[in-house]
């Protein structure tokens, strides 16, 4: 197997073609209890991270927003409220189980009219050039097989002046916090996954994929290489999560 044809799946080295299917299996397995697990794992703080993402997005009435790897639709629901009936929000996810859970949840909440649901791969977004004012991807980029291709695809669908926001786990800046975070990720998370979703492997993958994800500065460089300008990031909760923002010139 040549080096070019492989990518990481957690700590494992797998064939590039196989990663999407393996990630899909992880999310098929956890989709029904995804929201509950997010609340349990983060102690509810993921809502604060997403709220900050919405603030920084600068989305306003009438905007077109694409939420990639939108999962159960936390960001899309809030964006749909903000853009109003004259705006447009597209919730995209590669995984049909997650998309179904998200669609059912948002429709049950009464979100209708300005929301679309699309099963799409972040690397090959099925939208025309210059379509969106804002693109967000929250806790999704680390699961993408080729992040560089995905970032260029996001740039393509953004309108000039549009913003990309990447909310993703990152590297804590403090050694003590880093050690506590490692212990939590590799000991507590798989156990929690076993108890709630009867699937510890998926949460072992979660912890491993976070460690394999590029750190704050590397991701910022990757965004700049893809063609984004004025790239910046904000560390949250000591760097456990970072929010990267870049503009399309």
């Amino acid at each position, binding site marked *: 197997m040549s080096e070019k044809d492989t990518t990481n799946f957690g700590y494992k080295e797998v064939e590039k073609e196989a990663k999407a299917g393996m990630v899909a299996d992880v999310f098929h397995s956890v989709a029904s209890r995804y929201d509950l697990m997010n609340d349990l794992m983060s102690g509810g*703080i993921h*809502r*604060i*991270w997403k*709220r*900050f993402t919405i*603030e*920084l997005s*600068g989305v*306003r009435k009438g905007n077109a927003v694409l939420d990639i790897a939108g999962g159960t639709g936390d960001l899309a629901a809030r964006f749909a*409220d903000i853009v109003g009936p004259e705006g447009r929000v597209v919730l995209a996810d590669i995984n049909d189980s997650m998309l179904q859970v998200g669609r059912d949840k948002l429709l049950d909440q009464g979100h209708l009219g300005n929301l679309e649901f699309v099963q799409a791969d972040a690397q090959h977004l099925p939208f025309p050039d210059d379509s969106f004012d804002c693109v967000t991807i929250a806790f999704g980029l680390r699961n993408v097989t080729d992040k560089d291709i995905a970032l260029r695809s996001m740039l393509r669908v953004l309108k000039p002046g549009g913003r990309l926001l990447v909310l993703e786990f990152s590297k804590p800046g403090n050694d003590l916090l880093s050690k506590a975070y490692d212990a939590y990720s590799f000991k507590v998370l798989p156990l929690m996954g076993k108890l709630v979703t009867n699937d510890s492997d998926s949460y072992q993958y979660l912890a491993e994929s976070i460690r394999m994800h590029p750190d704050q500065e590397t991701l910022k460089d990757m965004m700049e290489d893809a063609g984004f300008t004025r790239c910046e990031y*904000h*560390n*949250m*909760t000591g760097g456990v999560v970072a*929010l990267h923002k870049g503009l399309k010139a």
Partner: protein
Amino acid sequence: MVDNINPTVHTAALAALEAGLNQALTLAPQSAAELAELAECVFALHCTSPTLDVYLQPSAKGIRLMGYHDGAVTTSVRGEASDFTELATSKDPTATLINGRLELQGDSAALIELQKILAKLNPDWEAPLVSTLGDVAGHQLAQMLRSSFSWGKQASDSLGRQLDEYIHEEARLSPPRLELEDFYRDVQQLGQRVERLQSRTDRLRKRLRALQQ
């Protein structure tokens, strides 16, 4: 948003405050309807001490509080926390804005409207108690809370008055407000007279020099 504030803490604090405000607004439908008229406005509150930026956006669904806003602002207000408290509790917000230390940019009418709506916010706290505990128990608990609050307010007002009287009249630690205002006025008048005298002597000195030449 101010860079030295942790975004997680800042966002969490604003989320909690927003939830509390919106909960109060659901119990005061009149205020909520009035806020809907300010739906297109964004108010920027820049607090310099402690350093904190808050953006407030009213809508028909309630109030949205943000730590960061990328877009046009209707009214921007800058000042210390005490200045904002003074404005929030003022019975005459126009006078407070003119005479106070707050720096204001943009549309002051919208800000005054917002202050008036929030100042007269009078939530019906009995409604959630009645819906949770039932008509009889809920009403009795609400009455009890209302009389406790009323007693607390009376006690606090009375304590404030007595403390004021003790400081000014008994211990004479500070002069009364009116006396202090008279003193400030006298100092101001003295200052003006000194300035006038100075300009008069300058004029006379100039004329004297002209005569000597």
